């Protein structure tokens, strides 16, 4: 290593701690309220994505750019910030717009059809496949298949 290279290396090594001590962006802490705000944002997003935009087609108020959706999001934020639970906020909107405003309807009464029908279809399909598969394997084994 030449003399010039040694000097450059020494300068680089001596400068490294200086760069390391450069003040970084302040880390958000609970004390300055930043963390709490982020948590509130997350909650607002979570609730807003479960509420239907009443002037749109199949959009949540989280995804809709409409003025009413924005105002509904503001109400969600206000109520969560005031200490209401996510369920209480959803109940507030359901009391005014009906259960229709909930993108995920409650699993009770007629709504149960929505939840049970896919399960029933999957179970029925699985049972059908099982029965057919058994028949095919019996046939393959040389046993006469009986028509049910």
């Amino acid at each position: 290593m030449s003399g010039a290279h040694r000097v450059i290396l020494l300068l680089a090594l001596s400068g490294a701690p200086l760069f390391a001590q450069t003040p970084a962006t302040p880390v958000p802490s609970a004390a300055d309220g930043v963390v709490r705000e982020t948590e509130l944002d997350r909650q607002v997003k979570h609730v807003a994505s479960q509420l239907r935009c009443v002037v749109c087609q199949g959009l949540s108020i989280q995804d809709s750019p409409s003025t009413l959706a924005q105002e509904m999001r503001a109400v969600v934020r206000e109520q969560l910030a005031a200490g209401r639970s996510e369920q209480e906020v959803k109940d507030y909107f359901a009391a005014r717009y009906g259960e229709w405003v909930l993108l995920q309807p409650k699993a009770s009464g007629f709504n149960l059809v929505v939840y049970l029908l896919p399960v029933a279809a999957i179970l029925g399909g699985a049972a059908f496949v099982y029965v057919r598969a058994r028949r095919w394997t019996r046939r393959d084994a040389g046993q006469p298949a009986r028509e049910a």
Partner: protein
Amino acid sequence: MNWRRALIGVGIALPIIALLAYGMTTDPKKLPSTLPGRPAPEFALRVMDSAPPDTVRLSAHRGQVVVLNFWASWCLECRVEHGDLSLVSSMYGPRGVRFYGVLYSDTEANGRSWIREMGGQAYPALVDDGSRTAIDYGLYGVPETFIIDQQGRVVHKQIGPITAQQLSAIIDPLLAATPVHPGET
């Protein structure tokens, strides 16, 4: 056997057909409303252009029929009903019925010039900042009109323009049930 397969097919198809038939009986454009029959949400709204500044509270009108109409200057159908609302408010005002127009999602300047363009408004216009009252009333759009009885219950919600005949048909029985002396406010 074929008949057995056919029975299974019918057994699967029937509930699906029944579900679709049920869907055909409902109007997808009909918007649900939970308010009729229930207490009207309380509100405190500023009266537009009032000097000194005035605020209208629903609770101050207990014992009176209140007609709350949500409107906006950008709403074409609001033009259709405006004449009827003004006419009926003049007819029923002396009998203690209170009419209010709530400006929805609009600027006061636009609302003011719209009222001028329409030749005036026989009842006060209220300002709903942030549409909080509109959301409290489960509003979908404008025009929408709520008729609130003397006990503070919503008896009717009209989505779309309302006519003088419709208003009279709803208000008259309410007044007949609880007579209000002329001039009483």
